[in-house]
């Protein structure tokens, strides 16, 4: 019989090892899935994980890596702070959309004026938009005690409809021959979020993601405020004993993660994506949840997890192109990764012991 025994002190070894184990297990299970779909599993894994980094067209794909990873890391860094505190913002996708909408609106209102102040103003608008969208569940939780999980999630659907409304209505490109979607900001110099160093894919969002990771690390692991946030997640009563005001914590966590998600949306709409369309959002807000957990809610872990997840996106696209692997297979793959991680987490807090049949 197998018996679980709670470890007195959580194992550091397993805390670092389980994400690697989870990735390995996912590759095996994913390979089986690909085999079931009639693809050569070794080939598929190679196309997803190896070719984008070291294959024939690696130079192009490597720059895509940062483009895809930046929003994931930016959003996940904010989410992880809240998750540590036991505050579940799962509506980052909505905050991402609203950030993009607000930032793009500022740009489109100013069009075609050129000014060095425009892009900073858009950044502020995107940040504020995400922040305020995150403030809705925060305020409802603080004032009425409404579940932030359900409200933030419902607001994703509201935001998606707003996005479609904007793309078909107020923000529609007047010169777009009737097609839905806004003007392309890539063709509007003052509003464009360009590649900063040619060939790297690094735009302002990448810079913001790096700052967010460093900031989150200092906050969570060096500052007393971050310590109190961690206490709030581990033991809410102890947090109150340590002087944490629950309402302030809710506002901080939802506001911070909302603002970062809004920023991610702004950088995306003004950079790689370029325009508001009804299909602008690509699920970064949800994938960032996987990134946050895969990174063990630790900023540096999130950096690595974001890059890995970006790799699966790019590799997935390649596999779709070269092997005809359905796009959804990658989504399943990412879901499995999270399952394995959550399952293997047991090893961090419990010891597994085999006992004889007599017990």
């Amino acid at each position, binding site marked *: 019989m197998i018996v679980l025994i709670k470890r007195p*002190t959580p194992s550091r070894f397993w805390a670092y090892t389980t994400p690697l184990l989870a990735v390995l297990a996912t590759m095996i299970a994913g390979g089986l899935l690909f085999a079931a779909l009639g693809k050569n599993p070794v080939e598929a894994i190679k196309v997803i994980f190896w070719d984008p980094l070291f294959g024939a067209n690696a130079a192009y794909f490597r720059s895509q890596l940062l483009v895809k990873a930046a929003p994931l890391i930016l959003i996940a860094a904010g989410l992880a702070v809240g998750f540590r505190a036991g505050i579940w913002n799962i509506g980052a996708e909505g905050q991402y959309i609203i950030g993009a909408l607000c930032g793009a609106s500022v740009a489109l209102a100013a069009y075609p004026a050129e000014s060095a102040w425009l892009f900073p103003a858009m950044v502020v608008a995107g940040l504020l938009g995400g922040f305020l969208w995150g403030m809705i569940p925060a305020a409802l939780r603080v004032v009425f005690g409404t579940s932030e999980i359900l409200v933030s999630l419902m607001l994703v659907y509201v935001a998606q409809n707003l996005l479609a409304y904007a793309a078909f209505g107020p923000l529609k490109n007047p010169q777009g021959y009737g097609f839905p979607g806004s003007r392309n900001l890539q063709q509007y110099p003052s509003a464009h979020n360009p590649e900063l160093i040619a060939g790297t894919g690094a735009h302002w969002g990448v810079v913001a993601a790096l700052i967010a990771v460093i900031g989150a690390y200092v906050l969570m692991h*060096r*500052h007393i405020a971050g310590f109190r946030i961690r*206490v709030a997640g*581990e*033991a809410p009563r102890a947090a109150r*004993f*340590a*002087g944490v005001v629950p309402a302030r914590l809710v506002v901080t966590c939802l506001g911070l993660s909302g603002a970062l998600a809004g920023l991610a949306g702004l950088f995306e709409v003004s950079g790689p994506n370029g325009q508001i369309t009804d299909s602008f959002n690509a699920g970064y807000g949800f994938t960032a949840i996987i990134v946050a957990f895969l990174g063990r809610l630790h900023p540096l872990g999130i950096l690595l997890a974001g890059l890995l997840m970006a790799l699966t996106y790019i590799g997935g696209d390649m596999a779709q192109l070269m092997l005809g692997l359905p796009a959804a297979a990658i989504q399943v793959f990412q879901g499995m990764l999270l399952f394995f991680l959550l399952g293997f987490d047991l090893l961090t807090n419990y010891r597994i*012991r085999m006992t004889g049949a007599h017990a």
Partner: protein
Amino acid sequence: MTGTMLLDIVGLRKAYPGVVANDDVGFAVAPGEVHALLGENGAGKSTLVKMIYGLVKPDAGTMRLMGQPYEPAEPRAARAAGVAMVFQHFSLFEALSVAENVALGMESPPPMRDLARRIREISTTYGLPLDPARTVGDLSAGERQRVEIIRCLLQDPKLLIMDEPTSVLTPQEVEILFHTLRKLAAEGTAILYISHKLEEIRALCDSATILRGGKVVGSCIPREKTARELAEMMVGGEFAATDRAGRSLGAPVLEVRALSLAPMSQFGPALREVSLTLRAGEVLGIGGVAGNGQEELLATLAGERPSAPGTVILKGAEVAHLGPNERRAMGLLSAPEERLGHAAVPAMSLTENTLLTGTIRRPLIRQGFIDMGAAKSFAEEIITAFDVRTPGAHVAARALSGGNLQKYVIGREVLQAPDVLIVNQPTWGVDAAAAAAIRQALLDLAAKGAGVIVISQDLDELMEIADNFCALYEGRLSAPRPTEGLTLEEIGLMLGGAHGMTDVLAKEAAR
């Protein structure tokens, strides 16, 4: 001899990784006998009764019930064999009704209507009035215990196990319980009575088995021994009495005036017009059965919940609106009852746990940034000064035994040199040596001029260390009385007597 025994246990052993909880334990109980299992916290009493009740399987040894081999695979089997158990805690469902709670403890309960009738019958027969339709969450601790007892009695048990039954009762309620138990014993039910309260065991039990460190270290007839002899058998040596000399009361340091607050949770009590004055050098004992507002009082005084203006005055300054850290800065520290999850974070190390309360009065942070070195040396200081047994400061709080963690928590506050310290249940679930050390630390703190409030269910403890005694009952605090010359009877009445039992008591008295 064995043939006449109801329960006969030989060579029982149970080991957990790192601990042998029970080793070669054996004893026997005759029908109609009240048998005490006596031992300190951690002596192995609960593991032993869990094996008898089928919750834990022994590694070795045999049990016989009424001469038959007895190996209960689960509590259901134990109940079917005629063994019933009244738990210390953890076995009632607050949101369910009395009748539903009783039904859950029975194998094949009758329909609810009949069950409600039988609950009323049994409860009047044994003098334990109870309304089957009430929600358990609304009942007092004593009433909840009645639910458990009636649940057992409805199954006609041959053996009734009672785990620390009196820890939640007022002295008057204890009298009623003993009356019920004697009546049951007279009817032939054997009772296995687990306790560390010596006077109770001397008053109630026919025989006693004494456990220490998982082993049987002796057996006796409690009536023939003094409480001190029993204590020495239990602890395994002489034990030091606390020294309460050298105190003089100074000026008031903390005043609470007509403090009222709504309940914190659905089934929690409210605080009603609580007033008290604590003077420098004083140890004020607040007694009462848990659930009468102890937790709420500590949380409010510590600053976790703000209260109305003018209700809390610390060293002459109004602090009712201030949070815990502002109050710490002014010299008011506290140690809540729940060690894991309130006074300390279970998964965090002892070093990290100093940051919970220590950043205000100790230089553990600089401009908000944590100085891990300073935190570590503070943790080590606590470990040394309070003899906390741990491999080091890096160990998680949950890895420590109850007594050691409690020493750490109390030490963390005492070493910050408070002017006012409020502690709730400082020695609950703590072994005798650690309890004595904690009590002495509180007395020493008061001797240095701090005011100390000790909230406790353990009346003996309060009589031992407090200068003045107040009772907390249903959120109300009685006027203080000097502990010298106070009798248990008087305390019991201050604690609310026996809930809703005055008529029963009157009948007893008339007999």
